[in-house]
């Protein structure tokens, strides 16, 4: 065969893939680099490196207020989305009712729908019921949008679960309630954690829906957004870098947890037909 052509193509593919990786990572790398730049967010090269911007960041009270607000909303969203998402996943997996297909699509819709639609529809709803826009409305918005994430992840977890285990539990004398707590939930542990982490991250980062439901108190993304209009300094790079570091930290934690919870053998065991 034409070995040369194949080799050339293989090298080209490798180089191309490297370029794609670079494209995906470079902007963030630049961002992090310039958070140490004394002279601002642009220009080239960054000559004077300093930690001043981080110092300024740590003294910046409104930012940290916003962080606290975001954390509260995120924690609430995780609780709400996981609970309702779990119920939704169970309903989709086990129950049959009229309108189930519509329900399934409805629950999954916010995942693929542009945030502005979710945000605006909820805004109109808030006005309709006469609710005051606040962190609470933001929390409800996030919860609604993120149930999709929980439901998808937990549904996949339920499908992967060996159904016979629940039957075995009933067979051995446990009631359905006991079975749920002793067998179903532990089997979903990984899915619950995965979903929880993802919901937390998405909530902390959420802008589109939040944009329309925010009251007086800002979440972190909206605080940053507000500052972007006023003029950008590397302080924003600094806070972005911190956000990036925390995100990566969460991923590492997640993978560690996953690795220890599922040793290779257990993984094989669970993947048996």
């Amino acid at each position, binding site marked *: 065969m*034409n070995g040369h052509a194949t080799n050339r*193509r*293989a090298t080209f*593919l*490798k180089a*191309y*893939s490297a370029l*794609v*990786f670079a*494209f*995906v990572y470079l*902007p*963030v790398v*630049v*961002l992090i680099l*310039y958070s140490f730049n004394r002279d*601002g*967010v*642009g*220009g*080239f*090269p960054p000559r004077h490196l300093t930690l001043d911007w981080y110092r300024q960041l740590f003294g910046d009270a409104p930012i940290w207020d916003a962080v606290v607000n975001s954390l509260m909303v995120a924690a609430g969203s995780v609780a709400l989305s996981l609970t*309702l998402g779990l*119920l939704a996943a169970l*309903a989709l997996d*086990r*129950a*049959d*009712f009229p309108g189930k297909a519509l329900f399934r699509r*409805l*629950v999954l*819709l916010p995942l*693929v729908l*542009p945030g*502005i*639609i979710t945000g*605006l*529809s909820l805004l*109109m*709803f808030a006005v*309709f019921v006469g609710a005051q826009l606040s962190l609470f409305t933001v929390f409800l918005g996030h919860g*609604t949008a993120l149930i999709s994430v929980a*439901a998808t992840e937990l549904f996949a977890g339920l499908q992967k679960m060996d159904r016979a285990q629940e*039957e075995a539990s009933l067979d051995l004398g446990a009631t*359905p309630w006991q079975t749920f707590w002793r067998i179903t939930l532990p089997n979903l542990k990984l899915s619950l954690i995965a979903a929880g982490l993802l919901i937390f991250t998405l909530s902390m*980062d959420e*802008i*589109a829906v939040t944009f329309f439901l925010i009251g007086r108190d800002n979440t972190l*993304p909206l605080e*940053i*957004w507000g500052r*972007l209009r006023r003029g*950008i300094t590397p302080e924003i*790079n600094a806070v972005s870098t911190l*956000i*990036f570091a925390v*995100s*990566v930290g*969460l*991923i590492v934690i997640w993978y560690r947890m996953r690795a220890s919870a599922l040793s290779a053998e257990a993984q094989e065991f669970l993947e048996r037909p």
Partner: protein
Amino acid sequence: MYSRAYKTLVSVPPILWAGIFLLLPYALMFAYSFWAVRDGVIVHQWNLHNYATLFSKPVYIEVLLRTMRIAVSVTVCSLLLGYPLAYYLSFRAGARKELLYQLVIVPLWVSYLVRGYAWKTILGSEGVLNGFLQYLHLTHEPVAFLLYSPFAVVLMLTHIYTPFVFLPIYAALEHIPRPLVEASQDLGAGSLQTFLRVILPLSIPGLLAGATFAFVLTLGDFLAPLLVGGASGTMIANVVQSLFGAAFDWPLGAAISACILILTISLLFLSERLEKRWSFK
């Protein structure tokens, strides 16, 4: 195996939630789209003016078309970047496949705002890229079109959605049993032919899923234009956003949103049908 009580208990709360917080708001949005604004107040007078305006006024049509162009560009570019990467990882990366996969996932966890902001600082006339080009004496003046243009919007959103497009394509490619590739080669097809005749067709569901995702979300994006789009890069969602803001015309805004919603749902349905047609189970 599950009693009626069990099934009712798990179904009712989420159904109630979906009804109140999903269905009802969408219904309200549709209702608003048929109302009007008079002297700065929303009047519940049922009419079709909003839809008529949307489809007849040139300014709206222009923005709509621009949005479509941008969405198509983003989708195509994300596919051009994401597919080869997925192919490389799935078929050529060997032992490093798992590690590289984690590396591709990482940016997904990083804030949209962070990444958008990064591009803002890179593309500006005083930005990193211009500084870099001038440093290398490749240009003497800042290149203007980089920022505050549709180009910037496409660039930023491609950056955002390439990993999203990568994921389902990678999953689809991983599902292709390797013996199929071997059989194809055994029968005389080289790698290019094998790719075109075997791998690509079998990966279409993943491709469609990723493309739909990128297209639909770009269509309704209003943040990227605000960050890097400038006046020439406004998209339809920005129009909606201002109608709910300074331009205060909720009914018209609702009408446009309703159209976006319907368009999104239609595209999802279409994509689903196509995916089914192209999945060989």
